């Protein structure tokens, strides 16, 4: 299991990432309040909560898309300088993400979308197009299982269906095979069979000794594949518990109780 760790300081007990009192504000909107959260090695964590609870925001802070307004971020025990933390840096730290909103260039061909941000280049920065196309083709055939009529690595994303796009984003994450893979509602646009593939992918992450954050509104799926559950509510962590400590019914009851508390909170304003 520790053979997976690429960083020298990491021991099996250091969490891959740790957020400490992280807050995020967009103008007056407080999206995250004092969030403290750890993702251990070889752990599948389900992140659930209402629409607008702050799940995607948490992911964006964690993966270098948005800087936090307050708090600290640690990756494998090392403090991250918020000012220089970027998506590129996150990639280097072996954190891979499938974002909720499309992260594909619409007008660009599939092969570019697989490798953008970290293309296969020679020393002068020129891209090895042949190699990229070959690997992209492999990913499409084996990992995503595109049997799509007439889709090739040269097809621009704008001609793909929603599910096919999602497949490309997931295939990309699978290819770059990191220590922590973040999936923000990966199954939204997918047909039943493809959803099973994503769940199998998550199980393979576990089997491969890696970690995953899985954001999903389908509580059943979360309960099925996750080791730990984190429930977010209005920017705060409302629950953080091992999946084994709760049955599916108890979990849904807990989530419903959050829903029923909400109007009261709204009325107090």
């Amino acid at each position, binding site marked *: 299991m520790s053979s997976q760790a690429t960083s020298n300081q990491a021991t099996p007990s250091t969490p891959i990432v740790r957020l400490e009192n992280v807050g995020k504000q967009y103008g007056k909107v407080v999206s995250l309040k004092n969030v403290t959260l750890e993702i251990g090695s070889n752990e599948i964590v389900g992140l659930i909560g209402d629409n607008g609870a702050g799940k995607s925001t948490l992911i964006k802070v964690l993966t270098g898309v948005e800087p936090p307004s307050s708090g600290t971020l640690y990756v494998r025990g090392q403090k991250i300088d918020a000012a220089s933390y970027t998506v590129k840096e996150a990639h280097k730290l072996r954190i891979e993400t499938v974002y909720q909103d499309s992260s594909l*260039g619409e*007008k*660009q061909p599939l092969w*570019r979308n697989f490798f953008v*941000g970290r293309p296969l280049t020679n020393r002068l920065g020129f*891209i090895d197009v042949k190699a990229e196309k070959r690997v992209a083709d492999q990913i499409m055939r084996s990992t995503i299982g595109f049997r799509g009529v007439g889709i090739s690595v040269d*097809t621009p994303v704008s001609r793909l269906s929603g599910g096919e796009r999602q497949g490309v984003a997931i295939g990309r994450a699978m290819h770059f095979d990191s220590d922590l893979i973040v999936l923000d509602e990966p199954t939204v646009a997918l047909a039943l069979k493809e959803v099973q593939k994503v769940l199998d992918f998550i199980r393979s992450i576990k089997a491969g000794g890696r970690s995953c954050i899985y954001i999903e509104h389908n509580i059943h799926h979360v309960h099925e594949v996750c080791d730990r559950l984190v429930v977010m509510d209005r920017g705060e962590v409302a629950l953080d518990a091992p999946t084994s400590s709760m049955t599916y019914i108890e979990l849904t009851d807990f989530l419903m109780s959050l829903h029923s508390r909400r109007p009261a909170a709204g009325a107090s304003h």
Partner: protein
Amino acid sequence: MAHADKSAPSNPVAAFFKIEGTAIALVFALLVILFMLTAPRAFLGYRVYMSFMANVPPPMIIALGLTLVVVAGEMDLSFPSVVAFASYVFCILYQDYNWTWLALIAALATGTVMGFINGLVVTKLGIPSLIATLAMLFLWGGLLTVISNGASLAIPQIVGDPIQVVFAGRLGPLPVQFFWALGVAVLVWMILNRHRFGESLLFIGDSLKVAKVVGIPIEREKIKLFTLMGLLSAFAGVLLTLETTTYFAQAGMGYLLIVVAAVFIGGTSIFGGSGKIVGTVFGSLIVAIIEAGLVASGVAGFWTRFYIGLVFIVSVTMNAAIEDPDKVPLLKDLRARVKRY
């Protein structure tokens, strides 16, 4: 039907026109043939082509740079002032200090720094580049007028100097600068289609949000882009100076509209995210040959712009139609009607 769209076009004619630049090259060939008919005396001889090849390189090189800028969803209107500035720096250093190669380096460095500053203004102040570079057009132009005291310069003695031979001499009857322009075209094509910098520009122009989440350093790449544009504009300015052996303040202004036209005639989309380098090469040739051809055909000078406008509309429409006929509402209507009957 929807699936047929995704596969490679089976129709060989359609396949031919999907190759970058073929359609626009055809427009150019048609124009040449047209002028051979309307002005046979000029266009059946070689001289008109030689003067054409001598004059087209500066605007073509600028248009190549501008294509990259447009790919990234940006615009640069400041290049006429950069052209003039580089031209002035080169001329004055040659005239006053007899510098040649050093004058070239100084002129290129000046343009590069100006482009870099343009990039800073666009990214750090967050002003949309169309507006920012329009302001910089005035600012640099004004600064140059002050520095140069509004004077023009002539350096006829540079003819025959090695630097003039290398950049504006003749290979037999062929103007050397034309090969420099083609060299720049190859380089810019490689940057856009084969280099990671070009890929960054494509994704930045496609969607800033996507560029950000895939880890492209947007600000840095944009600054690099405007810097490169400054360098290319300066190179164009030096080529112009070596060909005409003069500097005058309005030197670059004449290029403003034709360069922008050349980029869009070539088929690069104003919406960013894609660009056609071969198209820009032929776009520049088309604009220039219309000017030369109409004069030789005896059409009154002020008709030139009218015809450039006409070819502009036709080319842009054609480019859209080749990509997808349904993008042109008129064609879409016609096709629907034909199907109905």
